């Protein structure tokens, strides 16, 4: 089969590899119909998340048809022919964490838990195509994928719903929604959202679903800010203002946004000396993440407010204003999305026609063009917001 493989920093390549096989009783094999490049894949592309290896198959946002099931799967849970969306987190369904609905913290789905335990104390769940520390599972930017614990994660999608509407249930729609849920929004709240990438776009819309009065979105690309405005947000282009924190104060009667969402994570951009220092430290690998947004969010958040962090961080950060965080009595919540909590309710919204996630798509291309799309997406060229790959399209370069 064809698969997008990580071949080194900024080097992706479409390789022909063996088709996946069932390795464990609760595995299933899915023939992939649509798959996407995620903003978090760009952290791997740029080489900032440790434990990637040459030859790893990328991708964690995919859907398709079940073509093979392991001996341990009951037909009432999953059978050959089912059309499913596969969540990016892998969960066993039976451990302490799964029983508490903390699906992305499953204790039994990461075969390389010892690597994560070295870095984080304990290991979160395994993820598709996202470093060996997170399990080393082959990802879904391919024609087929092996799905472990397939009776827990994959959700069946009715025929009437197109791939374009359903595929984002694999990660970014629930992740954007989770970002808003973690913010503990109360009716009338003002929410500031850093970043206007695909997750942020879903966060903005989810904030309104959960009762926010105003959403203020912060980015530097006009085409992304316009998309945020289309979702009802007011916007700040941080390259056009001196000070984001002051601008947020000015926009909120000097009380500050009640809730702040960091939908950017470890590769944030900014201007000024502090940012240059973070950038240099990250290049030298003595600071793993650039916490530019986190600092601003803590500084800007109103007293007693909540900072929600759906953006990906990998390791250690410097100069986080802990004094502000403590003395202002803030709450911070973070995490990979507990996918299985939100996939069904959000699928229902799509099914009822209340919400159509396909608005974020900017590029639809054959899988053969994935390597160049990584670069275009990373460099924000061609007004790129979201790339959907067709694993079966003829590799016509003209597509």
């Amino acid at each position, binding site marked *: 089969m064809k698969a997008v*493989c990580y071949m080194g920093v900024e080097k992706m390549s479409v390789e022909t590899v063996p088709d996946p*096989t069932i*390795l*464990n009783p609760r595995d299933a094999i899915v023939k992939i119909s649509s798959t996407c490049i995620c903003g978090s894949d760009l952290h791997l592309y740029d080489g900032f998340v440790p434990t990637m290896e040459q030859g*790893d198959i990328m991708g964690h946002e995919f859907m398709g048809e079940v073509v093979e099931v392991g001996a*341990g799967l009951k037909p009432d849970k999953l059978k050959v022919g089912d059309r499913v969306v596969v969540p990016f987190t892998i969960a066993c369904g*039976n451990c302490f964490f799964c029983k508490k609905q903390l699906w992305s913290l499953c204790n039994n789905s*990461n075969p390389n838990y010892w690597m994560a335990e070295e870095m984080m104390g304990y290991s979160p769940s395994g993820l598709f195509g996202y470093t060996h520390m997170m*399990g080393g599972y082959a990802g879904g930017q391919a024609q087929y994928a092996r799905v472990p614990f397939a009776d827990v994660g994959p959700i069946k999608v009715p025929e009437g719903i197109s791939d374009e509407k359903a595929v984002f249930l694999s990660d970014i729609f629930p992740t954007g929604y989770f970002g808003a849920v973690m913010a503990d929004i109360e009716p009338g709240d003002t929410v500031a959202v850093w970043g206007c990438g695909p997750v942020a776009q879903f966060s903005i819309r989810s904030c309104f679903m959960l009762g926010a009065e105003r959403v203020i979105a912060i980015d530097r690309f006009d085409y992304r800010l316009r998309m945020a405005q289309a979702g009802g947000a007011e916007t700040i282009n941080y390259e056009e203002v001196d000070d984001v924190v002051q601008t947020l104060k000015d926009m909120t009667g000097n009380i500050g946004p009640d809730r702040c969402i960091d939908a950017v994570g470890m590769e944030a951009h900014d201007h000024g000396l502090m940012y240059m220092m973070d950038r240099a430290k990250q290049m030298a690998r003595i600071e793993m993440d650039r916490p530019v947004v986190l600092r601003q969010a803590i500084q800007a958040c109103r007293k007693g407010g909540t900072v929600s962090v759906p953006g990906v961080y990998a390791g250690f950060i410097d100069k986080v204003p802990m004094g502000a965080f403590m003395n202002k009595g803030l709450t911070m919540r973070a995490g990979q999305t507990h996918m299985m909590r939100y996939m069904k309710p959000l699928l229902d919204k799509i099914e009822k026609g209340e919400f159509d996630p396909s608005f974020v798509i900017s590029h639809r291309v054959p899988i053969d063009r994935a390597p160049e799309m990584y670069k275009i997406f990373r460099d924000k060229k061609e007004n790129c917001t979201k790339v959907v790959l067709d694993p079966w399209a003829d590799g016509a370069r003209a597509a």
Partner: protein
Amino acid sequence: MAENARIRITDAGRGRSRSMSPQRWGALIGGGALAIYGITRRSPLGIALAASGGTVAVLAAKRKSSPESSASSTILINCTPQEVYRFWRDFENLPRFMNRLETVSKLDDRRSRWVAIGPGGKPIHWDAEITNERENEHISWQSLPDSDIQVDGTVDFRSAPAGRGTIVDVHIEYSPSLGSANTFAKFLNKGANFAMRQDLRRLEAMMEAGEVPTIEGQSHGPRDFITGVMRFADPTQPIPARSNLKETFAARRRMA
């Protein structure tokens, strides 16, 4: 019983825990040198070197080495003491989660024959006998005379509060000290306690999820030489008995 075992065994690891290993001295001296060199450079790169060198030295000085002749670990499993006791009491199940064991076969209700993977991939044989047990609570076993090694093991099962499952405590002592199966594992300080913790994580997965998560045998793109080296040195994967090292290296390079 366990007391006796401890007295007999502590001899084997005598003195080891007090002195520092050559690797730790190497890290301490190397890290310190790097830090001093970095400070003298008086440049951003120098500061970076000093910081990382200093970190290495501090970590080396802080790290405690564990005696090689015993291992203990503990794990909370989301099942009843009865379930995990029954699984463990059938010793033939042990190689399903202890990956340094090749086979355990039952001789009768109390005695069993064990084959483990020793240093350099050599098989080690011994027969063991259950010396004490309380249903759903405790099992201890001991190797019989004329075995390749002396092994004493105990495992205790107790209920965790609020229905959270069962806490499993395992302690194993053995002599002579086997050392570590490969030097790279030793360099990373992945000794016997590390191996046992991995075993218990696999036991947890067996009991809770019904299978041990794996990526072995999955498909992937072309691997490079470095990946082969990393796989070969993986401290969680002992090299099986009677295997050809060159073939093992090639296989692990291919394998995900």
